[in-house]
């Protein structure tokens, strides 16, 4: 112990923190004198950070690039021959909207893993100790996830064009289908926020998401028509939110065959049904996700 510390007194030059004491090589108390960053600039900073992660670890994009392309190849060329869709464009055209919806459903993975990782590593605490808006982190995470998923949508559209998928309708209808897809991605973000806030590790997120999201995306009209399924499964599949979205996209892009007369209600009004599902899921899960996030961070 040095002699000057034994006194236990504050150094003679110490002043109240408000005083304009020269501080750190002549700098002043930047934080207290600087203006607060606007929400937009906070979000921009955090989105850039999230996107830098993708740049540094491009393998993060595998889930929206290589994986769906592999599914296209697998279903179009391996199973495709034995699946009857009764559409003019054939199975590959019919398949593409299904895989796009599935890829978008995995946006929830991306959000959940990113969030759990940040919680786990203490990044969220570091951000919460800063004078920033409470919602900046959540908004930034949503935006970067939608960008991430959109890269997947572009890759899937290009892959589709390569294997013979075409849009047979007009621009407004094509755009509406993409819009529904993005809205679905928005709903999935809240699912991801909820799971990400509730789980303790990235491995747990992967476990939970894989065993739930994966079968849910299959128990639908994504890869095979629902008409051939056993009655109970068929009902489940036709009420599955993904089925409405996929049916809507198929109709809007002109990739659909006629809907069976005995199909469940959502499949007979797929655009409206998909809209309602996405909005409904967001409305229910957003408050749950915010509460789970608060419980996780503020009660600790």
């Amino acid at each position, binding site marked *: *112990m040095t002699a000057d*510390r*034994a006194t*236990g*007194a*504050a*150094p003679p*030059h*110490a*002043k*109240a*923190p*408000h005083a304009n*004491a020269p*501080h*750190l*090589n002549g*700098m*002043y*108390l*930047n*934080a*207290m004198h*600087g*203006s*607060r*960053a606007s929400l937009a*600039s*906070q979000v921009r*900073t*955090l989105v*850039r*950070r999230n996107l*830098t*992660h993708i740049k*540094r*670890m491009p393998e993060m994009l595998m889930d929206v690039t290589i994986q769906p392309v592999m599914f296209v190849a697998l279903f179009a060329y391996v199973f495709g021959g034995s699946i009857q869709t009764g559409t003019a464009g054939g199975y590959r055209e019919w398949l593409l909207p299904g895989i796009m919806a599935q890829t978008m459903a995995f946006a929830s993975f991306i959000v959940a893993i990113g969030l759990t990782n940040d919680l786990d*590593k*203490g*990044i969220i*605490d*570091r*951000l*919460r*100790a*800063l*004078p*920033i808006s409470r919602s900046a982190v959540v908004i930034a995470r949503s935006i970067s996830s939608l960008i991430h998923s959109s890269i997947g949508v572009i890759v899937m559209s290009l892959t589709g064009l390569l294997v013979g998928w075409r849009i047979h309708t007009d621009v407004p209808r094509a755009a509406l289908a993409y819009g529904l897809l993005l809205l679905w991605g928005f709903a999935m973000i809240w699912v991801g926020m909820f799971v990400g806030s509730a789980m303790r590790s990235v491995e747990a997120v992967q476990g939970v998401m894989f065993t739930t999201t994966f079968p849910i995306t299959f128990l639908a009209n994504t890869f095979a028509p629902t008409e051939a399924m056993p009655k109970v499964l068929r009902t489940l599949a036709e009420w599955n939110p993904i089925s409405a979205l996929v049916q809507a996209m198929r109709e809007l892009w002109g990739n659909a065959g006629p809907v069976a007369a005995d199909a469940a209600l959502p499949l007979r009004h797929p655009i409206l049904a998909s809209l309602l599902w996405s909005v409904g899921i967001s409305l229910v899960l957003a408050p749950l996700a915010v509460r789970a996030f608060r419980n996780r*961070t*503020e*009660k*600790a």
Partner: protein
Amino acid sequence: MSAPALEAIGLVKRFGDFTAVDGVSFAAAAGSVLGMLGPNGAGKTTTVRMMTTLSRPTAGTARVAGFDVTEDPDAVRRAMGLTAQAATVDELLTGRENLRMIGELYGLDRATVRRSSDELLARFSLTEAADRMVKTYSGGMRRRIDLAVSLIATPPVLFLDEPTTGLDPRSRVELWEVLRDLVRDGTTLLLTTQYLEEADQLADQIVVIDHGKVIAAGTPLELKQQSGAAALVVTVSHADDLARARGILERGGGEVFVDEGARQLTAPSEGLRALTQVAEAFAASGIEVDDLGLKRPTLDDVFLRLTGHRAEDESADETTEVSV
């Protein structure tokens, strides 16, 4: 003296039935170092979390740079920097990008961020590593960039939660030097530690916390005097001799602690002269001794004195306890 830069007033934090922090109060003058000493699970991190607005107190409050943590958390956040127990820098960003991100979030303009980043990187000997991803950094470098990031907005108050845990001795001493520089420049520090030596090296005032309560407070010197200048530790060869050995040690006048399992006795000691006398007494008594020596006061001794139990008894990890 001006108003304290740091003040805890009866802070309480309960998680369900578990009381992690049970009425903690202390104050630190501007430009001083407050050391918070205690074992794992004592409530140090929870106290820091309440003072840095991360956790809402169940009761009581705290003021940082004069701002109330519950009433004006945003002002507190502007006035303080926090370096948490685990280095919370973004591993996929470079050192410079980490500084820039936090600087921008504080609302600093670009020129200030650039200038401050350069200065901090130089000050922490990270200029060469500035444009490398943090995941390539060594443990000591990570701690330094973590601290640098906390300083980007030059906050007048800095919280450091176990800043040197897991560091090798050289990095630890280097970090101490950096912290001394900061204090010289007028920053108020609150640092938690499990190491008496660290508190001894850095702190002007120490509060000792156990089971969520302040059990002692004072300057390092005062605390060390409380825990005895040095301790005499004797390990006897046969457990049967423990009672007689105790008798010999009690002649010194101090209270003797006996650890039967380890056949070890601990007594306060005045220094080398006492050691010689005791050694002679044991030789004369014929008690076989495995080991006999002087031990400088450690955190354990402080705890033994203050609480009657050793610090390691507290095996619960604070972070897991918090998540109950």
